[in-house]
């Protein structure tokens, strides 16, 4: 009888450890909106450059506005999180570092290619596809999220199409990849995040 009570007490301790570790790792961060924002930004830039006369300006202005909106919102949310005393997790920092590194690489490489005069649209799309494929793949492996790895495969396929195909084929592939991997995936991620945060609120 004593042994049984002791066993229950020990099991209770083990269950407490598991629950608390899971509670500590539970994330309330939301990043789906960033995918949607950049997906819309790409479409705005593509539409503006296709129907306007200022192709370079269309990309420069749209990308700069998207970047300011992203960094501004992230900085605001981080400061709000600090006030609300949300703890930083290793998982969150790992995913953020992957996207930050890829974002900085794109911000440096793409304008440099444009200024060098040695690039063409196929090369730029191939670079975008490769870098976004890398970020999505790394992020999916950290988060163990198969759907995001699917997005990585689509971005890599875009890079290959851009290297081997015509300008028109590369352009169509970019529109399709952007729709599925930024807009659709972003909205799906936002729905998942809203559900998870609701569960966390109910749990609290």
């Amino acid at each position, binding site marked *: 009888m004593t*042994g*049984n009570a*002791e*066993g229950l007490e*020990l*099991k209770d*301790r*083990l269950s*407490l*450890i*598991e*629950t*608390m*570790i*899971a*509670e*500590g*790792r539970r994330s309330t961060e939301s990043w789906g909106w960033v995918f949607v924002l950049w997906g819309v930004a790409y479409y705005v830039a593509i539409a503006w450059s296709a129907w306007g006369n200022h192709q370079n300006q269309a990309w420069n202005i749209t990308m700069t506005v998207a970047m300011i909106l992203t960094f501004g919102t992230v900085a605001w949310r981080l400061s709000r999180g*600090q*006030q609300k*005393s*949300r*703890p*930083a*997790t*290793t998982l969150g*920092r790992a995913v953020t570092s992957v996207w930050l590194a890829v974002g900085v690489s794109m911000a440096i490489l793409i304008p440099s290619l444009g200024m060098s005069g040695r690039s063409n649209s196929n090369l730029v799309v191939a670079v975008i596809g490769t870098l976004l494929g890398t970020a999505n793949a790394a992020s999916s492996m950290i988060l163990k999220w198969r759907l995001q790895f699917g997005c990585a495969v689509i971005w890599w396929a875009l890079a290959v199409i851009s290297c081997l195909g015509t300008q028109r084929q590369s352009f169509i592939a970019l529109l399709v990849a952007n729709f599925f991997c930024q807009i659709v995936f972003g909205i799906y991620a936002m729905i998942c995040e809203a559900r998870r945060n609701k569960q966390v609120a109910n749990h*609290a």
Partner: protein
Amino acid sequence: MPELPELNPVIHGKLRLALLSLLSGVEEAEFTWLRAKTGATDGNLGAQLLKLEEAGYVAVKKRFVQRKPQSLYRMTEAGRKALTEYVQALKQLLGGVIGS
């Protein structure tokens, strides 16, 4: 018959065990977050965190955010090692209880 291990008394307290487990999943955590997750009172939480700090299992850092003081706690390497050993001992004991 192998000797059963003893459980670390510093960690064995329910609140201290909950605190170490919580801190093992985050880089660092603020006092109010720990209070919200454990449901402990300020006094009890402060006392248990002090015991863990004295044992060298957690480290504390004080800072000001918008002029309000914040205490940030993080698990030390010694704390991580102690928690790992505690879980191993617990599993060994559970095996012993089930076996007997």
